[in-house]
């Protein structure tokens, strides 16, 4: 984490593998993980719960964290969230 400031792009500070977990565990695990990183740092989440797309959008809007990326690869969703 010491090198974070010298990099142009913030690196992923925490990863959440929520594949196979049903609602609301992807969000619960993300809410836990985001507390472990500094403000401005990124958290990457992989999920398969079909509600994830709407849930992560809603969670970010409500909590003020920024949804930087969202992508779907088949049945796996990937989200990158920047802690506010």
């Amino acid at each position: 984490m010491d090198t974070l400031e010298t990099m142009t792009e913030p690196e992923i500070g925490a990863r959440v593998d929520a594949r196979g977990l049903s609602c609301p565990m992807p969000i619960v695990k993300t809410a836990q993980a985001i507390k472990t990183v500094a403000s401005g740092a990124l958290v990457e989440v992989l999920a398969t719960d079909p509600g994830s797309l709407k849930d992560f959008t809603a969670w970010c809007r409500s909590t003020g964290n920024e949804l930087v990326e969202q992508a779907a690869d088949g049945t796996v969703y990937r989200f990158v969230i920047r802690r506010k």
Partner: protein
Amino acid sequence: MDEPINLVLFSGTDDKLQAAAVLTAGAAALGKPVNVFLQYWALDAFRAERIDRDHGLAPEAGAEGKGHVDALRTAGQASWAETLRQAKDLGSVDIQACSLSMDLLGIEESDLDPLVDGVEGVTAFYLNAGEGQVVFI
């Protein structure tokens, strides 16, 4: 501070308790305080010695519904009790037993799982609920 979400749990079957646990954890993840008030059969399911038992399903589940619930369990879905434990770790979740139901069922506070924070009456429940929504399950 947001107004709390207030869940009154009455039913003691695993499907309804699971739904309630999901609502609780979702609210906790959003930073909303949650008050859970346990009445009747829901309270009975929170006895320490019974919490991990099979509590059955609501009658409308039928055989087909039970198949779906069992499949989700087999796939590794967290139990409602575990979901509530995670919700409590994450946010402000207060679980209270209804004092009338305690009397009705002959339950002592020491009989309850540590998930339960205390015993209160309906007046205290409404006071803590404030202007927040009340949901009965």
